[in-house]
C-alpha cells in the first residue's frame, strides 16, 4: 500500500466532506426560516412576523371610546389588561363589516402593543426568509406605507406588514 497515495486520498475525502459541509452551511443560511402569521382581510392575504404576534384572541367585545379615529374602535379587556385595538380593515380603507369569525392578534414590538382586528386567521407557517421579496411599487395608499415585503403562497400573493410602520401609522 502506498501511504502517500492513501494520505492524498484521505485528504481528498476530507476536502470533499468539508466542501459538502460548507455548501450545506450556505444552504442552511439561505434556508433561514421565519415564522409568519398569515391572515385575511377583505379576501386579501396579509402576514405579520410571528415574533411580533403574542397571541391570537377570538372576537371579543370592543368597548367604544369617543374621540378616536375609525381605525381605532376602542378597548378590549385581556385578562384584566386593558388594550387598544387597531381595525386593519378601516386602516387599509376596506369597507366596514362586522364579522363573527373575526380575530384579534395581540401585536407587540419594542414598546408598541395593541390588538389588531383581522377578518380571519389563515395559517402560521415557517418559511425560508428568502421567499420574501420587496413590495411591488404598484401598491397604493396606506398599504404601500405598511407593507415590508411580499411572497407567494399557494398561488396567492401575501403582503407582509411591518409592525413598526403599523405603530407609526396608527399614531398619526
Amino acid at each position, binding site marked *: 500500500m502506498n501511504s502517500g497515495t492513501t494520505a492524498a486520498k484521505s485528504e481528498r475525502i476530507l476536502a470533499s466532506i468539508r466542501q459538502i459541509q460548507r455548501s450545506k452551511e450556505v444552504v442552511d443560511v439561505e434556508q433561514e426560516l421565519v415564522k409568519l402569521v398569515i391572515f385575511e382581510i377583505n379576501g386579501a392575504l396579509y402576514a405579520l412576523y410571528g415574533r411580533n404576534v403574542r397571541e391570537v384572541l377570538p372576537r371579543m367585545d370592543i368597548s*367604544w371610546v369617543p374621540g378616536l379615529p375609525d381605525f*381605532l374602535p376602542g378597548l378590549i*379587556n385581556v385578562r384584566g389588561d386593558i388594550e387598544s385595538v387597531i381595525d386593519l380593515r378601516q386602516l387599509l380603507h376596506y369597507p366596514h363589516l362586522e364579522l363573527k369569525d373575526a380575530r384579534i392578534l395581540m401585536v407587540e414590538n419594542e414598546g408598541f402593543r395593541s390588538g389588531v382586528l383581522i377578518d380571519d386567521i389563515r395559517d402560521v407557517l415557517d418559511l425560508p426568509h428568502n421567499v420574501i421579496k420587496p413590495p411591488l411599487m404598484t401598491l397604493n395608499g396606506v398599504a404601500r406605507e405598511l407593507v415590508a415585503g411580499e411572497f407567494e403562497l399557494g398561488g396567492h400573493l401575501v403582503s407582509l406588514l411591518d409592525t413598526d410602520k403599523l405603530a407609526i401609522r396608527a399614531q398619526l
Partner: protein
Amino acid sequence: MTACAEHDNWLRLLLFTVGGTLFGIDLEQVDAMIEFSEQEREEVHWFHELAGYGALDVTYLSPTVLVIKTGNGSRFPLVVDRLEDIREYQWRQIAPLPPLLEPYLAERGIWGVTPSRDKPVLLIDCAAYFDSHPDRHTHSMKE
C-alpha cells in the same frame, strides 16, 4: 408620602354612562347633582360634545346635570346620562390609557381606565378640561 403608600390610596368615582360608554369622574370634582330641566338646554354643557362623540347621535335617557368644580374655583354645569354608581377604587386598580390612544384622549380630559364588571370605566378629568379650554366654555355658573 411614599410611592407605595400612594398606591394604597383610594379614589371615589361617580360612574355614569353616555351613549352606552361608562365613565368615572373623581367625586371631589362634583359640587352638585341637579335634575336636568329643558329650560336650561342652552345654558349647560353636554358631555358628548366635551368628550368628542363627533357625528354620533347620542340620546340622553336620564339626563342629570353635574356641577363641575374646577381648580380655579369656577363651576360648570355638565349634562351626563344615567348615573350608575359611586365606587371606590385603589390607585393600583387604575391603569394608564394604552399608549396608542393617549394622544387622542388626553386633550378630552380622559386620563385612565379601570376594569369594572364587563366593561372598562374611562376616567375623565372634567375640571382639568374646563380649566384648559376656557375659550370653548362660556356656561360657567355664579357662586
